[in-house]
């Protein structure tokens, strides 16, 4: 193999005595697609910041193009062709595509005045590089996530980029968009640009990465090729524990129906949906983005009142015209985007847990009863195994997995009969995922009816008793998770053959 474009040798990064990176070695070659994996807090972000010069390592050296740096600055990193695309893309939503593309370069060139014709020229060249078609005058805020990402990529490629680092690049993309991204990546690779993906999900980057580097607690665990990895090994390397992915679906006989949908319809989104959810059952619902899976959840939660058909709770028809109706009928919903829809990040864990049951914790004149509140918080923190020293700390101090448990705790505090979860472990690392799956099992075993909406296929197969498949707003199949493999399930979701019971 040729010389690596960039190597880091024995790099240690300590923050007030705590080692975020501990003697890490790492190489990336020109034209290589490399995946850096690790759980939240493993040191991935620190490593990116060392490579891009944001942090100067306490020990060790960085070798780039044969030149050694003990203290790399961000400017030197950029001059050497290192570009980082952060998870939020760092774009300006209020400005046009053209301006987003041209601004950065013009700022660093120290320009004082704006030459709009030149801006357009720069932008046209930038999108031509990866054959990206977009309206240069569109506001970036109006673009899809995938297009925003492509804008960020185009912008990064404007300089003479040799290493492109992408932080969690596929998380917010649909399958088709991921494919389009991978085409772009392959093209860049052919031009000798090295790509470093940072991810904690194997599935997302497995097919495209040529090598994997896995770190845990700041230490290098292994650098290996994909042939040597499967999900189980990957999870073991990341968590350092044996990884158990046996089914967590409840084993007991399902009880009587708690929730039934009959001929449910929502304009332009759902058509003639029929299903029954039983007590003590976990029902998986899946489908592509746009298949109506989130609309179905929101219809059941009263956010989008159904246009057709009826919903029965405990055998009785109910009208769900708002979230209040759903809560009154014992339905709880854990949204997909917990950060914006499910949590008040700056408020304490305790406040977040009790928010949905303030009425129950108040005395006759509506004043909050502190003792009962404290008892409730203690109970829920215990039950959900939320890892915190103090439940009065802000939710933002918790890891993703623990935040998700706070959302769960909040809704469980209302003692629902029916729990609907949308993407319950999005952005949660592998260890926490298992904990959440076991919690779902426990809740179902105690008689709750649970609906899990997810496109994470291993998760779907692990947690569900039955799986309903949505395509273009219609239920097209019911699948027994024990009878299908991941590949078969995946093919079904993307519209391949559908075995099993036809609806």
């Amino acid at each position, binding site marked *: 193999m040729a010389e690596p474009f960039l190597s880091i040798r024995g790099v240690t990064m300590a923050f007030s005595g705590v080692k975020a990176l501990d003697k890490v070695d790492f190489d990336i070659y020109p034209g290589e697609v490399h995946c850096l994996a690790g759980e939240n807090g493993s040191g991935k972000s620190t490593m990116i910041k060392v490579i891009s010069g944001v942090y100067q390592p306490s020990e060790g050296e960085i070798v780039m193009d044969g030149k050694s740096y003990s203290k790399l600055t961000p400017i030197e990193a950029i001059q050497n062709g290192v570009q980082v695309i*952060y998870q*939020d893309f*760092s*774009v*300006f*939503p*209020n*400005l046009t595509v053209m*301006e987003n593309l041209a*601004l*950065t370069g*013009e*700022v*660093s060139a120290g*320009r*004082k*005045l*704006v030459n709009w014709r030149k801006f357009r020229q720069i932008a046209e060249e930038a999108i031509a590089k990866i054959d990206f078609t977009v309206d240069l005058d569109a506001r970036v805020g*109006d673009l*899809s*996530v995938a297009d925003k990402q492509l804008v960020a990529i185009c912008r990064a490629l404007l300089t003479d980029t040799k290493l492109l680092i992408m932080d969690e690049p596929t998380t917010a993309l649909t399958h088709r968009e991921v494919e389009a991204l991978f085409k772009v990546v392959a093209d860049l690779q052919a031009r000798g640009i090295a790509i470093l993906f940072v991810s904690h999900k194997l599935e997302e980057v497995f097919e495209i990465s040529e090598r994997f580097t896995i770190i845990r607690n700041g230490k290098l665990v292994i650098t290996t090729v994909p042939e040597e990895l499967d999900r189980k090994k990957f999870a073991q390397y990341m968590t350092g524990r044996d990884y158990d992915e046996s089914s967590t679906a409840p084993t007991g006989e399902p009880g009587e129906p708690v929730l039934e949908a009959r001929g449910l319809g929502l304009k332009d989104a759902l058509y003639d949906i029929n299903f029954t959810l039983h007590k003590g059952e976990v029902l998986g619902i899946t489908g592509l*983005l*746009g298949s109506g899976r*989130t*609309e179905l959840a929101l219809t059941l939660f009263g956010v989008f009142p159904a246009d057709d058909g009826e919903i029965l709770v405990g055998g009785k028809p109910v009208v769900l015209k708002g979230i209040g109706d759903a809560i009154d009928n014992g339905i709880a919903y854990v949204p997909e985007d917990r950060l914006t829809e499910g949590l008040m990040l700056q408020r304490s864990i305790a406040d977040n847990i009790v928010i949905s049951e303030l009425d129950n914790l108040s005395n006759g004149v509506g004043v909050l009863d502190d003792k009962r509140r404290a008892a409730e918080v203690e109970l829920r923190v215990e039950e959900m195994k939320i890892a915190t020293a103090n439940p009065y700390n802000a939710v933002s101090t918790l890891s993703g997995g623990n935040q998700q448990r706070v959302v769960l705790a909040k809704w469980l505090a209302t003692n629902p009969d029916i729990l609907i979860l949308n993407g319950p472990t999005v952005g949660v690392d592998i260890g926490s995922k298992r904990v959440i799956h076991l919690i779902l099992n426990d809740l179902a075993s105690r008689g709750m009816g649970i609906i899990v909406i997810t496109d994470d296929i291993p998760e779907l197969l692990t947690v569900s008793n039955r799986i309903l498949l949505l395509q273009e707003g219609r239920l097209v199949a019911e699948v027994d998770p024990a009878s299908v493999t991941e590949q078969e399930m995946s093919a079904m979701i993307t519209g391949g053959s559908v075995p099993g019971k036809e609806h």
Partner: protein
Amino acid sequence: MQGLLGKLLRANEFYLFLIIVVVSLIIQARSGQFFTPNNLVDLANAMVVPGLFAIGAYLVIVSGGIDVSFPALASLAVYAVTRYLVDSGYQGSVILPFVLVIALGALLGAFNGVFTSRLAVPTLIITLGTANVFSGIMQGALSSVQISQLPPSMEAFGRASLFKATSATGLTSAMPVSFLLLVAVLAIVFFVMRYTMFGRGIFALGGDESSAVRAGFKVRRIKFWLYVIVGVIAALGGLVRTTSMGQMHPTNLLGMEMMVIAAVVLGGTAITGGTGSLTGVMLGTLLIVIVQNSMILVGVPTFWQRFALGLLIIVGTGVSAVQLTRRRKRQRLVAE
């Protein structure tokens, strides 16, 4: 052409323009005096001070902040300068008052700028604080009182007119020279916002501050100079008001901030920062000025003016809030 028309129909400014036309026609129909030369000149005259303030408020709002200190800043700058000139028996040209007011406005603006660029405190809180400091200095340390006799050159500037317009009814109104000042400031700010990296930096900052930092904008420097500029524009507004009144009334401007911010928001500038046009700002100001000045023409009692203004603010901000929620909802449905 289709594209241009579509763009027009989506633009906030277009609808604001329509509203202004409708309101004008109603006033004309009821009073027959709206489209008279003297009324139009009166409106232009009344635009100058709120227009200058609105330009300053627009700059701050685009950058993602909000400034409520500009009336107090303007009052302090102009009061201190007038007091000094009157006490020293100044008889010279109007240049010196302008220079002093600009310098003092810049200094007080820099005071805002230092805090907003160094502290991670919302600008509303900072400028609420500095507004009180400014009016405190004026009313306490300088123990402000009304100054009824201005230096002669300032008074002359206030009376100077470009032309006089006389209506058929014999009413005469003068177009003040200060209108040129509004035009000049408007032109300069337009150029700065559109054709300088500093101006684009203000937009970038209002769109996403951390992205602006990563893109290499010197965010602190931009914020500091932004508040200096806004201080200068506000102080000029104060000077125009004082000269046109022919006296320095220290508390005359205080309380104008709500109306000015409302004009900016009515004009389509997003209160969250990052978007807005000067055309919109001027139209928003014009609408508010028309409502304030012309309701008397249709015989609406003056106390209803405040009611109408309040209604305009609610409708104006309400419309943009509804648009925002609609867009979000659409995006969510598209995203899913």
